[in-house]
């Protein structure tokens, strides 16, 4: 059953003569336990697609449904609640908060207003599963790139989302750490995973590989 469905997505960036339609009727459906990789050239709209799927950006037209909940037309607060409980983001630059340790970065997501209960227990489990126990108290600047990305994945998963959206998750990592991160994403169960990447290694772990060209996913 599809937990992520997007239909007829249209997005234009820029104005006037500089306007460019980067999504032009894009369609996507991802089921639980499925990993989908989206490939495309730089500037093809991969990240924009991911942002629209996660409710961070609004499409000009079309619909996005996460676990049956429509994102398009929702107010900011409603979108935030959907992101909190249904969606996990993994970013290329990790985006850990520098003042907080790796563990605190993960914990923070469980302390947001409206976060599902049992967050502390899930944090402990994730830290153990991802092998981050020995460095849990370290600040981000004391962690390797691979460790930072694993904490970022833990943060994305800690509220038990049904959809994980990863934007170039291995883009800032060396080959070894990149492979480890991909293995983690591949191993996620009961979740729809969308990876936006331009790296063939990332695409290799996907169940399905889609290409974004001329605003359409093929």
């Amino acid at each position, binding site marked *: 059953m599809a937990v992520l469905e997007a239909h007829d997505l249209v997005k234009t960036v820029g104005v006037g003569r500089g306007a460019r339609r980067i999504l032009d009727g894009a369609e996507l459906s991802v089921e639980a336990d499925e990993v989908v990789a989206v490939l495309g050239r730089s500037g093809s709209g991969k990240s924009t697609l991911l*942002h629209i799927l*996660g409710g*961070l*950006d609004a499409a000009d037209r079309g619909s996005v449904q996460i676990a049956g909940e429509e994102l398009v037309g929702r107010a*900011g*607060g409603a979108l*935030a*609640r*959907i*992101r*909190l*409980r249904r*969606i996990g*983001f993994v*970013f290329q630059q990790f*985006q850990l*908060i*520098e*003042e*907080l340790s790796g563990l*605190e970065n993960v*914990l*923070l*997501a469980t*302390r*947001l*207003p*409206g*976060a599902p209960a049992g967050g502390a227990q899930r944090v402990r489990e994730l830290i153990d599963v991802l092998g981050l126990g020995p460095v849990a108290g370290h*600040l981000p*600047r004391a962690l390797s790139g691979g460790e930072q990305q694993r904490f970022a994945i833990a*943060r994305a998963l800690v*509220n038990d989302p049904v959809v994980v959206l990863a934007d170039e998750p291995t883009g800032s990592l060396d080959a070894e750490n990149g492979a480890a991160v991909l293995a983690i994403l591949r191993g996620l169960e009961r979740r729809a995973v969308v990876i936006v990447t331009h790296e063939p290694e990332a695409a290799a772990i996907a169940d399905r590989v889609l290409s974004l060209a001329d605003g359409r996913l093929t």
Partner: protein
Amino acid sequence: MTAAWPMALIGLRSRRRRAVLTGLGIALAAAMLSAAVVISYGLGTGFARATRAAGLPDVIARFNDIGEHRVAARIEALPDIARFALRLEIVDGEVGFHGRQTGTIVEVLDGPGRYDGYAVVAGRNLPRLGSEVLVEKAFADAWGIRVGSYLRLGDNFLGPLRVVGLVEGPDDVGYPLAKARIYLSRPAIDAHFGGPERFPQVDLAEIWLRNPAYVNEVLAQARATSFGIKDIQFATRAGIRILLDQAAGIVIDLLVALSLIALVTAGVLLAASARAEVQRRLGTFGVRRAVGETRGQIVRTQVVEGLLVSVPSGSLGVVAGLVATYGPASRLLELLNEPPPGWGLWWPLGLAWLGAVGFPALGAAWPAWRATGGPVVTLLRGGDVAARGRPFAGRSRGGGLVGLGVRLVGARRVRWLASVVTLGLSAAFVLLMLALASELSTLETDPGALGKKYALTASLPPPSVSPTRLRRIPGIAAIAPRYEVNAADSFELGETIDTIAFPGGGAAFEAPALVSGHRVRGPDEADVGAGLANALGLTDGSVLALALPSGRELRVRVVGIVSSLDHEGRVAYIEAGTLLRYDPGAASSASLAIVLTPSADYGAVTAALTRLGAPPSVATGATARGAPLVDVLRAILRAVAVLDGLVCLYALIQACALTVFERRRTVAVLRACGAGAGAVRRLLLGAVIALVVPAAMVGVLLERVVFGPALSRLAENYAVLNLAAGSGPVAAVVAGLCAAALVAVGWVARGASRDSVVEGLRG
């Protein structure tokens, strides 16, 4: 510089909200700066202005009435005399206007002209003939007297006197701090009585020297040749200034102190704002350096951008500060018989404007110059602030969003400190003003604050009513006659002394706080006010020679110095028997001072006293003469307090906005993780808690330990003021800070929640 303009305009357009916030800060700081300049310059230079405008003489000599020709001959014989004028000063006149009557000093001028020691500020000077009069401006304004009005003098023996001009005479403070002064022309009086007096009398000489530097030599010569002129005393310009400073000293000292605090607050605010702006834009500088711009080009753009914001906002702030404080400061100056600064303010205000406009621009340029000297790669990282160490880590570990907010603010320790100092100073300032306002109200309304233990005063009852009958009235605890006469110091006759006497000394009825010594116990002892002690150099054990209205001299030993606001502290308390022995006429000044029991029924006591022919009135606090001064002081405090409150609010909004802007990536990550507007508010709440809590502590400590005691010391010559803020004002200021914090959080969170998450993630 040409290329800097378009770059600066582009920069401003892309950061409109930030520019508005920065401009607001500059405007507020400029307003405080301008207010400080108006108050301190206006008051600080008031005497010099008044001296210039009035042509105040270098020496004023007062003496007992004597023939004009004899004085003139002596003065003409002195060396270095440029010119002189003689007048008769009648200190016990009465002036009436529209049914009102008050005591007045009538200055009978010998020859009105350009140099009479006063400045005509409205209308014209006196003519040589005609029943016309000049009126002191402060008195005219207080009573609604205009040029063209008619006054009565005494029993109207001169007929209606037409007011032809309003004047300011800086040799004394104005009405109601001192008696109202009016000026008459002697030739006009002579004309009224049918011809000149044969031997016109004078008691005051104004002398202008060719070279004021020789004033001491001229005075020595004058003293040596003044035989035959009784009770002569000299006052120089410097001496007059000291006397005025004593009269208005507390007010000027207070306002200058408040202005200094305002200046410090404004400086801290501007510095923090300028530094923060540059820090925030380090990443942009890195990019521009990377594409080949020089440090000089970047700094020039920075200066122009700074000027584009600071010129309009600084100008607006300077005008706002001027408008807020010029009126109250001018009213205060009028009470001191000094003219407002007028156009004389242009250059200090111009300097303030230059400071308000130039300082932010230069403040932005200097850190930009320093910052752009580093490696470009370091600048490129500069957009989001890197954490240094773990500020507040121990306390906020696992503290959630509020704890994170605390840490984000704490990561910028210098700015955190600057913000805390700014807020703390402002809080201390507001606390001080609340404490001061409370003390002023107490002084004005509570007679106990001035040491008056009696609640009622009454005229003496008919002789048929025995004192015992009065004492038996239920509610009356004690009753005694109170005598009050206006004496003069025998050595300095111009120094009037409010002499108060009770049987046995009267400590049970009137006992202002003792500064030193003890209360009057015997017939030859006196307690004197600190103002009088300062003016005459009296200490415990000194001898005070009082020239009483009877003409006799009473010598008493000073045994105590007390704080008293009455008559600017120029008071003496003596034993009633002694006073009546030397001045039997003082009996006519007697009134009854009535101390009530704690449970007394005012109405019943009043009715009983009225039935016995002694209708009472309620004892007041500071004399009515002090009320306008208190009102003006309150107006100034209010104006500065409003500016101060706005500074607090701005500092909090600025801190929140900078936190959000510098940590926009952090905020965007939180929002990407599902944080809504409520979560952003919690984050900012933590940020403001990190500022408000220490600032409140700093503010209370500063007020209680530094500002309050310092101002109390300044005022100790006049009254014992307890300026340590109590729990009420502290609670009010903390509540105000919290309210400002909530406004700041709400306002900034609203904007932050509307920003694009995607843009924020890009940093």
